[in-house]
């Protein structure tokens, strides 16, 4: 024992450690299930089936056995969800915020933020379920209340490769922005509590049923996917669900609410068209999530939507100020911003169904028709749609829904042949008209009812002094800008 040096002991220990590590490495490299080493290699049929499912992931087809979300599609949809939220916070908030007088800028921001919070809560509670669970043709059931069962696995009713929780969050962003659009029409004279109560009721009576009818798997107006749809209409990203509903509801609400004090005799000027333009850019970029994301996949249809959104918006963005130049002598930045938003609105229902040329047609119409609506209707009918929600979203959404009926083509979107082969490029526009009619009646009727209820229960308007002082002070006790003040 005396002859065994420290070096020898160290060498033996090192060798022992090496053997142990090598053995462990070999053990990890082997298949975890010992039985597998003895199992037969997969048959050609098994391999073909698995490969077919992988190809289905690539092409957004339906897999036969593979139950999983697909990383690419999920990534795109999560990105799209963030983009659509970005449209509200802060895109729309700044777009509208810049258009109101300085004393009301914070009220607009608070309304958008409040929508985000309130609608998210309702969505979790039962909103997602009422919209996307199977139920009746008018409203979904309670299967997904509290988002139970809404996991990372896809819901094949809506997407083969997108996690249902991602899909639910994506759709939530639509549910948030739709009521946020309404606040444009009633800006500067509706008190915060009334707005929040109105939106709470409006989501249940208008949005959840309407979205279910148009996009729910058993929806009354889901022409593309529901073979039993009573109205075989199409709406890719929400021309009826988002823009018509908010636009016509906005009109109804602003008529019941009444005009701002001093409307018609005093100048109500946008306090910052800079903010409005910043908001416009954010809306445009975010809208790629809104439109291309409505393919609920990172596929060729999304790619088409990306392209048509770009073309229609850019053209409308320039047509509107061009018309200003011709009729009034100068193109305005507000005209560029309004044109861009109008283009985005009108292409929304059509974006995944029309080709590039269709997008050009949409762009020209979107720059012209809402321009006429905004510049003529208010002066003729004398209603105070403060920020032209009806002129742009109501009129634009209606126009888009109708034009989609004429321009949709299965060459762009083969899904149109599933249930609509007989009527696409033929009488689809009649179905669109029916969808337009139903949407209009629901929006106007329900809004009239809800507004009357809210008016009776808590009242709609602030006091006259409160309105004159500005809603920032009256509803929120805050001032938007302090930088120009002398003291402090």
């Amino acid at each position, binding site marked *: 024992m005396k002859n065994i040096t420290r070096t020898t002991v160290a060498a033996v220990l090192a060798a022992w450690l090496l053997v142990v590590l090598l053995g462990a490495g070999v053990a990890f490299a082997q298949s975890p299930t010992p039985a597998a080493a003895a199992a037969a290699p997969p048959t050609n049929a098994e391999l073909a089936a698995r490969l077919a499912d992988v190809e289905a992931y690539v092409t957004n087809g339906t897999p036969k056995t593979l139950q999983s979300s697909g990383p690419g599609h999920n990534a795109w949809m999560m990105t799209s969800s963030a983009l659509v939220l970005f449209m509200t916070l802060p895109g729309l908030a700044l777009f509208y915020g810049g258009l109101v007088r300085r004393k009301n800028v914070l009220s607009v921001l608070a309304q958008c933020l409040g929508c985000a919070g309130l609608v998210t809560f309702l969505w979790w509670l039962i909103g997602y379920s009422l919209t996307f669970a199977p139920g009746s043709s008018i409203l979904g059931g309670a299967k997904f209340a509290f988002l139970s069962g809404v996991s990372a696995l896809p819901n094949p009713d809506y997407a083969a490769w997108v996690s249902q929780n991602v899909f639910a969050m994506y759709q939530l962003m639509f549910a948030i922005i739709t009521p946020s659009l309404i606040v444009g029409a009633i800006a500067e004279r509706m008190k915060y509590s009334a707005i929040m109560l109105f939106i709470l009721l409006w989501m249940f009576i208008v949005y959840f049923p309407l979205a279910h009818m148009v996009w729910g798997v058993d929806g009354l107006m889901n022409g593309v996917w529901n073979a039993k749809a009573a109205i075989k209409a199409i709406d890719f990203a929400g021309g009826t669900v988002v823009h018509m509903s908010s636009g016509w509801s906005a009109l109804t609400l602003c008529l019941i609410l009444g005009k701002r004090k001093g409307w018609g005799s005093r*100048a*109500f000027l946008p306090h910052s068209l800079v903010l409005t333009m910043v908001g416009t850019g954010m809306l445009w970029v975010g809208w790629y999530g809104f439109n291309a994301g409505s393919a609920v996949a990172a596929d060729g249809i999304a790619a088409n939507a990306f392209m048509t959104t770009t073309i229609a918006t850019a053209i409308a963005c320039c047509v509107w100020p061009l018309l200003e130049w011709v009729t009034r002598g100068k193109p*305005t930045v*507000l*005209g560029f911003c*309004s044109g861009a938003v109008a283009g985005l609105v009108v292409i929304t229902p059509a974006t995944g169904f029309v080709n590039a040329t269709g997008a050009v047609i949409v762009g020209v119409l979107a720059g012209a028709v809402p321009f006429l609506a905004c510049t003529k209707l*208010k*002066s003729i009918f004398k209603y105070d749609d403060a920020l032209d929600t009806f*002129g742009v979203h109501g009129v634009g959404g209606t126009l888009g829904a109708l034009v989609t009926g004429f321009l949709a083509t299965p060459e762009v979107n083969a899904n149109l042949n599933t249930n609509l082969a007989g009527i696409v490029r033929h009488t689809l526009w009649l179905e669109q008209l029916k969808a337009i009619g139903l949407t209009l009646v629901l929006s106007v009727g329900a809004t009239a009812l809800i507004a009357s209820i809210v008016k009776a229960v808590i009242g709609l308007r602030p006091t006259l002094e409160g309105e004159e002082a500005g809603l920032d002070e009256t509803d929120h006790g805050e001032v938007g800008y302090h930088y120009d003040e002398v003291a402090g």
Partner: protein
Amino acid sequence: MKKIEAIIKPFKLEEVKDRLRQVGVSGMTVYEVKGFGRTGGKTEVYRGSAYVVDFVPKVRIEVVVPDSMAADVVAAISAAAKTGKIGDGKIFVTPIEEAVRIRTGERNEDAI
């Protein structure tokens, strides 16, 4: 001493300031204000709604000078601020009772 108060078009401020310096005026106070006179405001159009905007942005200059300089200062401001178009503005002259330089305590003509 006289206080000379002038309401002028904002873009004329630099020219007026330079002319006053030439005339020997060593200090002034300026304010951004809004106002209108006999000829009224202007029309702005936002999305088809035309508004008559009464209050137009202006700049108000105040200088305090010895009585002997007052006439020159009024003439200088008039010449520099004039464009010949409506909205050129107005000049008012008021007497000043007392003036104090805060840093040194100098009074009246030594203070301005």
